[in-house]
């Protein structure tokens, strides 16, 4: 039982990291209809930026906050200079652009900081606490709580502020939004910036565990994409729930199903995804999109 609780909490913390990335992907998809395959790579870049700030002697929490701000800027600039040009064109081309961005950003990280693993300090103390007799690391608890807090903040932003309303308007119908005087282009930049900021959080949370390398987020990206498909592309809540479910299930499967073990646990979300696609192709929480011809 102890192991079980421990596994569930660790799974939730892993799932939270996937959830942050999945939320970023949903955010971009909602505003521009794109899947940003570079979201993970951009998160790695943010983690490297935080790493540089820490190298300058800033305390980790300040460094991470600064990197979130810088990442917001990077996301907005990427949207303006790179993605804007392909938004109206064929969706496939735009996706290939994000894949080019993935290669480019990974390449930049590798070129600037090399391919060796680098230690990234943890935000949380590496101690453990006793909860109902189970030994739980503070890091796992902290990661989960941070993500929950961010989700509440995002929800407040989208439902309670004028900016949030404008962002939602642009994602629902950009043409009408433009006609009612909203600066659509600038709002899209804000959407991409927010997504990049979320990615920065994910990067900073996962970097201490995985150590910093340019390809750090490749696996997390696959998990996040699986969460997005399972939860439904148009449902932020679904993506988060699915990410948590994936994190917990794969942790349990790794321990309790001997064939899977720790090396093959990445196959778990894939199998779930397969089943979901066959039974409910729009995702567990997603709405069916009806296209008018």
């Amino acid at each position, binding site marked *: 039982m102890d192991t079980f609780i421990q596994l569930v909490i660790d799974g939730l913390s892993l799932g939270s990291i996937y959830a942050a990335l999945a939320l970023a992907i949903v955010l971009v998809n909602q505003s521009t209809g794109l*899947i940003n*395959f570079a979201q993970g790579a951009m998160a790695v870049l943010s983690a490297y930026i935080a790493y540089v700030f820490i190298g300058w002697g800033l305390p980790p929490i300040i460094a991470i906050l600064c990197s979130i701000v810088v990442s917001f800027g990077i996301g907005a600039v990427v949207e303006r200079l*790179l993605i804007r*040009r*392909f938004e109206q064109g064929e*969706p*496939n*081309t735009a*996706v*290939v*652009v994000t*894949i*080019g*961005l*993935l*290669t*480019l*950003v*990974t*390449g*930049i990280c*590798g*070129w600037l900081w*090399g*391919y060796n693993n680098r230690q990234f300090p943890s935000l949380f103390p590496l101690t453990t606490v006793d909860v109902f007799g189970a030994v739980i690391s503070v890091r796992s608890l902290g990661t989960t709580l941070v993500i929950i807090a961010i989700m509440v903040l995002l929800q407040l932003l989208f439902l309670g502020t004028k900016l949030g309303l404008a962002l939602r308007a642009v994602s629902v119908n950009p043409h009408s939004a433009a006609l009612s005087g909203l600066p659509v282009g600038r709002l899209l930049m804000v959407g991409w910036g927010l997504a990049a900021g979320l990615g920065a959080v994910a990067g900073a949370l996962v970097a201490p565990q995985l150590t910093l390398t*340019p*390809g750090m987020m*490749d*696996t997390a*990206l*696959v998990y996040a*994409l*699986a969460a*997005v*498909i399972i939860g439904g592309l148009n449902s932020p809540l679904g993506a988060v729930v699915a990410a948590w479910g994936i994190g917990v299930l794969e942790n349990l499967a790794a321990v309790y199903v001997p064939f899977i*073990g720790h*090396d*093959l646990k*990445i*196959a778990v979300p*894939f199998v779930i*995804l*397969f089943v979901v*696609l*066959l039974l409910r*192709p*729009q995702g567990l929480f997603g709405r069916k999109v009806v*296209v008018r*011809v």
Partner: protein
Amino acid sequence: MNRLTKLWNAPWARWVLAGAVVILLVALPLMLPVFANQTLTRVGVYAVAVLGLNIIMGYTGQVMLGQIFFLGVGAYVTAYGVVNDWNIVVVFLAACLIPGIVGLVLALAAARLGGLAIAMVTIALPIIGVPLAKRLSDLTGGSQGTSARFSSAPEWTGLDNDQWQYYIVIGIAAVAFVLAYNLVRGRYGRALAIVRDNESVARSMGISPYRYKVLAFTVASIFGGVSGFLYMVAVQYTSPETMSFHHSISLLAAMVVGGAASIVGSLIGGAYYVLVPQVTNAIDPTITAISQGIILVAVLFLLPGGIVSLPRVIRRLLRRRDRGTAPTQTTPPPARDAAPQAEGPETERQGQA
């Protein structure tokens, strides 16, 4: 210029050209050094993989990020068959069929969700494939990889190993290219194009987008398996690293840089995949990834049709300059009498509109 076009359109000129190319391809390895032969052989290997990718992505418009996985499966099947002394023909058929079946099953699920589901599912393939190959060590040799020496030149040919491998790879690759050329020109090619351009129109004409996506995906994975077989002919060794994630991304980059929806573009893509990393690695290995990203983004910005569209773009620029102050031409010129090569997706697309 005009006379050249006329000459090109004459059937006998094409046959002469094709004959010259064949003679060149046959004679080349007898004169080139070993390293050049090996490089050309690898170009052939990856050209087939890019060709498969082009069928699903270029011609059918479904972004696919896991082509390298099928190459890996093909290579492992080949290695397993050779180690267990199967007949080489059986090995080849298995290297086509098994990746094809895997691809079919995957496509049946992935193609159900429209849009980018295929991309999001297939990106997982190389990431799962690597630990899977390590785990199934009885079949794959684990992280050590497995080697299979079966492509040494037989005595009677009097050829060196590299020349023999070159002939096998180029021969099979040529057949694959002819088959793909016929596929995308015929009834199926037209169906795939309309699925790419407008699924609703396709459906209204009685063409099931789902079925054709599954078909194209399966064909792509079979081509992936063939390229895996060729990979084993050329390299004689495979390990989980063969199908690592960044190789898969590079393959996609190679397809876009070569030219999407183009048979010749696939060939250029194969050459790009092999040659450019060789050059950048010689300069400085740390710039390989970044240069690949820069090239891909630059091509998308400046030359969305890939390298294969370069002659067309240049000709259009020249014509615009000839006209001087004439208004900018926005519609592409009629492709039939202007196309310098047998490349036809443009022609076909117009035929459909």
